[in-house]
């Protein structure tokens, strides 16, 4: 899985982290932009095309392209069944950043969800960490 893996800034695990940050930003922009343009046309808004009138959606699309290129690079070196679950750390980072930065309340049920994701991520990442240590 990690044979001939580039090091330094080209390290696929580092690029995976960068990809997560890009996804975090574009999901927030996508939601804001889609909501902005929702009232333009009741019929066409279902296709997502009306959202293209929002500059936030275009910014989201630029970040999406950057994250896609990063993701393609990651897929070249890391198995999909490992890389994809790990990339979902973004689902923990969104509520946590809202809690830390915006002071939003997190319900007990959401804390349970965050805990489940973190345990799942640890289970997925542990064999990878062992493999990296051996190399």
């Amino acid at each position, binding site marked *: 899985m990690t044979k001939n893996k580039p090091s330094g800034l080209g390290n696929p695990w580092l690029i995976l982290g960068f990809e997560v940050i890009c996804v975090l930003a574009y*999901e927030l922009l*996508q*939601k804001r932009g*889609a*909501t902005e*343009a*929702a009232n333009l046309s009741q019929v066409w*808004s*279902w*296709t*997502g*095309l*009306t*959202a293209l009138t929002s500059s936030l*959606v275009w910014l989201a699309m630029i970040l*999406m392209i950057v994250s*896609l290129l990063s*993701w*393609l*690079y990651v*897929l*070249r070196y890391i*198995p*999909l*069944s*490992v890389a*994809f*679950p790990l990339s*979902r750390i973004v*689902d*923990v980072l969104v*509520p946590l950043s809202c809690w830390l930065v915006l002071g939003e309340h*997190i*319900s007990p*049920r*959401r804390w*349970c*969800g*965050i*805990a*489940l*994701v*973190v*345990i*799942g*991520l*640890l*289970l*997925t990442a*542990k*064999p990878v960490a062992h493999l990296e240590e051996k190399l």
Partner: protein
Amino acid sequence: MKWQLFVLIPIALTAFVNGQLFLKRGMESSRARGFRDRKVITFLACGILSMTVHFLLMLGLLAHFDLSFVYPFQGFSVIIISVAAAVILRERLNLRLTIGALLISAGIVLVSIS
């Protein structure tokens, strides 16, 4: 407008899973064949097309539903992609990875619906 939810979410989810599988297959093949190979280009083009369909469908859904309502369905993509990678791409999926993917899926659903 509920019927759109039951029609568009499965299509969006399928497009997303297919997109990831195509992209993975394309990038893996590119290591041996390079990016000018027709097979690699086809896989990557199909992947990007599928991801574009998913992106547009998600925009359509997000225009009418809250992120917290649409996103839990995306949570299932973790376990679906892990299983699909094992079955279609022949990746090794042991018990630890399977439980990890299941917990992440369940966690995403819980986080999203709260």
